[in-house]
């Protein structure tokens, strides 16, 4: 383990209703502080549930989750959370919403940050929240989240409503925040391309479980894309995915031994890596050492 953990989960599970299905089950991972982490996975994988658990809005059905070293919710003043539907009070104006943020976070509030984020979006401070478009609402929600100057920023599908220009601008703001204040940022999305360039850490959630956790560079370095003759035996390695076409075998593996010299090998892209795992639910879980809880 290196440094402190922003989020740590052990055997974490959440079930909705006594007989409902498990939204998350048996999740164990550790997110070191200071990372910009992408939480990716298909729709309904459990990403939102995981973030709501970390924000202290849901109680785990089993297992444990620790946020900034304590119970989720115990560190409310140091954690910002923006839910997927960007909850705000519809009857307030933009300016009143920002003042409400100031009232509810007196010690940490940085009004200039909130005002700048809102002003960059050409938002009229006097407009009602209920009259805003989805993207404008997102902007107000992000302004509140950033002005709180959090140590941990939890964002559930933050970019979904934003146009490409606004997305680029907001991502820039988030990255600047991460660089200046060392804020840990956790962002979920089912569009990998949205996060690929900005994140250094990956959490792949699928079927209610964490399938991959780790630094993106390390994860990519730990996997190889190989092409070899069809009769090649890969048993010495961890095989994520393998396909045989004609006399050719292509596979994504985690090498556990030196690779044969006559194989063609290459480093996979992040998208190839994620898709290989998603296509193969039986593939083993991969976690880099510092992410093991």
């Amino acid at each position, binding site marked *: 383990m290196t440094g402190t953990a922003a989020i740590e989960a052990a055997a974490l599970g959440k079930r909705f209703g006594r007989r409902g299905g498990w939204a998350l089950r048996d999740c164990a991972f550790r997110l070191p502080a200071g990372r910009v982490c992408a939480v990716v996975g298909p729709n309904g994988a459990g990403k939102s549930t995981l973030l709501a658990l970390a924000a*202290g*809005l849901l109680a785990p059905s089993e297992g444990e989750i620790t946020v900034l070293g304590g119970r989720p*919710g115990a560190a409310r*003043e140091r954690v910002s959370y923006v839910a997927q539907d960007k*909850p705000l009070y519809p*009857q*307030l104006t933009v300016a009143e919403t920002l003042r409400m943020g100031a*009232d509810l976070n*007196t*010690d940490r509030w940085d009004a200039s940050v909130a005002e700048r984020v809102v002003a960059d979006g050409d938002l009229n401070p006097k407009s009602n929240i209920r009259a805003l478009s989805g993207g404008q609402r997102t902007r107000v929600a992000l302004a509140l989240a950033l002005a709180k100057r959090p140590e941990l920023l939890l964002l559930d599908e933050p970019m979904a409503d934003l146009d490409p220009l606004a997305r680029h601008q907001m991502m820039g703001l988030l990255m600047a925040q991460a660089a200046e204040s060392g804020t840990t940022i956790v962002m979920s999305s089912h569009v990998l391309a949205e996060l690929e360039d900005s994140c250094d850490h990956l959490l792949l959630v699928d079927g209610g479980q964490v399938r991959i956790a780790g630094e993106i560079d390390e994860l990519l370095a730990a996997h190889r894309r190989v092409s070899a003759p069809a009769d090649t035996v890969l048993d010495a390695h961890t095989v994520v995915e393998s396909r045989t076409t004609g006399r050719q075998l292509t596979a994504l593996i985690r090498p556990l031994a030196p690779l044969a010299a006559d194989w063609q090998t290459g480093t996979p892209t992040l998208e190839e890596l994620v898709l290989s795992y998603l296509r193969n639910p039986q593939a083993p879980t991969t976690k880099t050492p510092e992410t093991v809880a």
Partner: protein
Amino acid sequence: MTALAMSPTTARPRRAVLRLHRPALIVWGAFVLLAVGALLWVHLFRAPSARRPVDQYFVFTDVNNVMNFLGEVLSYTSVAVAAWAGAALVGRELENGAARFAWTQSLTPARWLTAQLGAAALPLTAGTTLLGLVYAWVWTADQDVLVSDWSYDRVLVPAGPMAVALLLLALAVGALAGVATGRALPALSVAAAVTCTARYFFGREWDTVWPVRRYWPVQLSATVVLLVLTALALVAAYALLGRRTNIKGAAV
């Protein structure tokens, strides 16, 4: 860390609540002023007029009609308050999700509820106390022309401390219904129905259980029972909220 999260310096939730519910506060203030004005009108103009038999009788300005009407309105204020507390104060923000905004700022859900209830209870208590005092004063001063007995619910409910207790119960029941249903309309219906029942029972039936019917014992005992019910509703509301939002152990 828990101490920090709960320390009152990290948030000023009452101001935020007042900002959210400013329209309701204005409506309440206007209602109190209007009702006090009407009571003064009864005392200064309608009662003296009733003492002069030469003045013509008119159904809408007759001292007893006006006083009875005011008594009915004031005695049902609690039902309106319950409906508002259930729907607008608590239920709606759970239904549209806005509560999750408040709950992820620097304060716990329980402290947010406390701020909501406190911000509402203060003006409600002040206004009802004023109305109760004015009503009791007018009713006592103009006994010679008023016909309603004190044991009628339209006198018993608004004229004493029971009015304040009933309003606080309405607020607590509204909060409980809001937290329990998580929706505005169901919370409104449940809270209004429960408060209406409480108003009926303590306004009409409570005095009949006493062997000797005297004003103060009936008033004060009803007040005490209503306050106990209020406390129970509040305990239930906080417990439910705690279960909903994972704040075991760090409730208030």
